[in-house]
């Protein structure tokens, strides 16, 4: 079995995806991209509670890195086209996750994405986002529909945590692009200092 890094948002999908990977026996490390001040404390609290539950269930320590992402969002909002903000945001999340994977000796990245659920989860947007990293990206829920994911979430006890009230991400543009052009994404990204942003995020990351 392998060691992997899982992006955890506090939503319904990521703990279900993590559950499947843990069930297969993989050794997992969590990464939560902290979007405050564009959200409140609730995503972080939800991730902490998801992990408490899954640690008990699978008898694994599952460390989780808390990576500050709010400053990155401000930089992206100030300097790039809002229309592709979600894809740019995801590219930075993946880069941070990959840096942590390298630090932890992990060989894959994982996410709770399911095809077509939200703007960032169309095939072209997922490709534009994950092309920013070299490690393989595992998506245990890719072909699930929302009802199936919710049913599993309820059965493992994470659903009630995920659906607690919270402030949704204020950085999401009104009309996010659902079909991204990689050349446009790369041009937009040239407006910011990618390495500096990721370096700062990783330097300020803490372990929960």
């Amino acid at each position, binding site marked *: 079995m392998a060691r992997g890094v899982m992006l955890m948002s506090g939503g319904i999908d990521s703990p279900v995806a993590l559950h499947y990977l843990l069930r297969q026996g993989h050794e997992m490390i969590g990464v939560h991209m902290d979007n405050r*001040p*564009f959200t*409140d404390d*609730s995503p972080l609290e939800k991730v902490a509670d998801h992990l408490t539950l899954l640690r008990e269930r699978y008898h694994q320590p599952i460390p989780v890195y808390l990576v500050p992402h709010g400053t990155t*969002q*401000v930089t992206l*909002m*100030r300097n790039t086209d*809002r229309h592709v903000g979600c894809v740019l945001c995801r590219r930075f999340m993946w880069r941070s996750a990959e840096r942590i994977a390298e630090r932890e000796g992990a060989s894959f990245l994982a996410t709770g994405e399911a095809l077509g659920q939200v703007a960032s989860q169309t095939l072209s947007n997922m490709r534009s986002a994950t092309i920013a990293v070299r490690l393989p990206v595992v998506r245990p829920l890719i072909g699930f529909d929302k009802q199936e994911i919710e049913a599993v979430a309820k059965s493992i006890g994470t659903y009630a945590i995920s659906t607690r*009230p*919270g*402030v*949704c991400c*204020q*950085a999401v*543009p009104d009309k996010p692009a659902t079909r991204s052009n990689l050349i446009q994404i790369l041009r937009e990204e040239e407006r910011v200092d990618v390495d500096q942003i990721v370096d700062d995020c990783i330097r300020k990351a803490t372990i929960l």
Partner: protein
Amino acid sequence: MYRKLRLCSNSGAYEAIPDPPIPLDLAAVRRTLERVGIAVVDARVMLLVGTTPEATISRNGRLLFKTRDPAAAEVTFEKLRALLKLPGAAPS
């Protein structure tokens, strides 16, 4: 005029939405708020405002208050409305 304050879709905050939208000059809004000592982070398309509770102000006049307490949201809404000379909310 603003619609009555309501919980946002994830039920974690109250939002005030103008109908029709009110185009705001965020640079001017920022100056106004900073003049009275309110901290503001300018994210170009929105301002993050250090009131209690924290608020965000969008270019289309939408305000969001990070609290689940309707009274606290209302107080901050009225404070910002007065400072920025925004129209009032629709009666309940």
